[in-house]
């Protein structure tokens, strides 16, 4: 079996993987990182969301071999204010979708910082789109929550996004 070098949460692992093994199965079955969940295994729920070089992707539709050399971050490698905010705002009930929600939200905030628009953005040419509830809901639509904890999820993300924005203003003013 070919050796695949996967870099996960800062550590490089050499794994013997057939090319058909998904990144999700490599993480869960081969590395024991079961924080990343398998909901649908078809790209339709977002439970398997991880970050590849900081970009959110669905690990279930990713072949592990294709992600050699990329820096994979799973929930086990995350330390983010989003985690406390999800607790504070009841952003979950059973918790099954939560690791995917948090990885997705990290990727989403980075995309927003990079001026990526969404399908509900009013003026695509304008930059600096405000993260309203509608923007957060659209940008997070790739993560389903069967418990319907959406209100708490949006509130948690909004709080962290607001704190980010507030932190950015003095930093930029000081330059």
């Amino acid at each position, binding site marked *: 079996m070919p050796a695949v070098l996967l870099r996960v949460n800062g550590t490089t692992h050499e794994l013997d993987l057939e090319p*058909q093994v998904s990144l999700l199965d490599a993480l869960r079955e081969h590395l024991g990182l079961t924080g990343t969940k398998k909901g649908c*295994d078809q790209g339709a729920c977002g439970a398997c969301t991880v970050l590849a070089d900081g970009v959110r992707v669905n690990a279930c539709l990713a072949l592990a071999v294709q992600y050699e050399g990329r820096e994979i971050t799973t929930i086990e490698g995350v330390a983010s204010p989003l985690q406390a905010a999800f607790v504070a705002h009841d952003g979950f009930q059973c918790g099954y979708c939560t690791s995917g929600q948090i990885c997705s939200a990290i990727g989403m905030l980075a995309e927003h910082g*990079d001026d990526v628009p969404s*399908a509900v953005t009013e003026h*695509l040419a304008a930059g600096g789109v405000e993260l309203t509830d509608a923007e957060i809901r659209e940008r997070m*639509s*790739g993560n389903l929550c069967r418990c319907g904890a959406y209100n708490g999820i949006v509130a948690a993300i909004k709080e962290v996004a607001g704190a980010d924005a507030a932190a950015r203003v003095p930093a930029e003013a000081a330059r």
Partner: protein
Amino acid sequence: MRSFAYVRPPDVAAAVRAVAAEPDAKFLGGGTNLVDLMREGIERPGTVVDVTGLPLQQIEELPGGGVRIGALVRNSSLAAHRLIRTRYPMLAQAILSGASAQLRNMATVGGNLLQRTRCLYFYDGAAACNKREPGAGCAARDGFHRGGAILGASGACVATHPSDMCVALAALDAVVEAESVRGVRRIPLAGFHRLPGDTPHIETELAADELITAVELPASPVAAHSRYRKVRDRASYAFALVSVAAALEVRHGAVTGVRLALGGVAAKPWRASKAEQALLGAPATEESFRHAAEIELAPAEGLPGNAFKIELARRTIVATLRQVLTQGGAA
């Protein structure tokens, strides 16, 4: 999933040679469609040629104002690009209304063009499906066909092409560039996807060993005033029931430029040429929009579960044109 050989060629020449050499080889882009279909056993390549490392990742402005998009540009990068947001807002909106952010981060332009239908029976190996198995029959005709075609369908197949991006590309006169061991050729997007006829398993003009290398958009001043509108069963992360890409230019109350294409209605992104002809020179009014929509949908045929899409398509055409007229484009 059937086991397969995985190769990662260093350049385009090696990639096209690798697929030409193996009759059951396939190119792999972001994998969001191919990996899913391989897991279901619908696609069974013996060799998978990963092209995501190839140097086809640029978005470049062409002399004259057009844009050349490398086939491996991710859907998310294309939608976020300044040139696309300002000059072709319908394209940015179309991409952003498809799939989810995670999937758009993975999906490539080439893979989006070649994504296969979401017809349930195509995905269900136990069901009769002429597209999967020519001659087997079509379970959708008497089954669940809400997502099915109302234009250009055949007795053999009523599947639709699911791409949002391609609807905007059809409206924008995009050209697909493909390379194989035989050389490079250019295929207008309007003729890239095929209607099913008796051969629904043949979906595009592309040969199995041809690599999509780029998509080119010609300069189009009218495209700056454009929008994409998608109607679906939930507000996000769902395929289109009907979608409309529309660009409109109006002078002194008359239509001087128009581009119109429909999604969710046929096995190909449907360029609404008849409606465009009817609109050119006509007063930019609700009546003209409705008239044009009626002309385009005149040959439409519905099945019990999707006939509602005929009127839905007419209304969505009118609503999208009205929105461009009153609010301008999405830029």
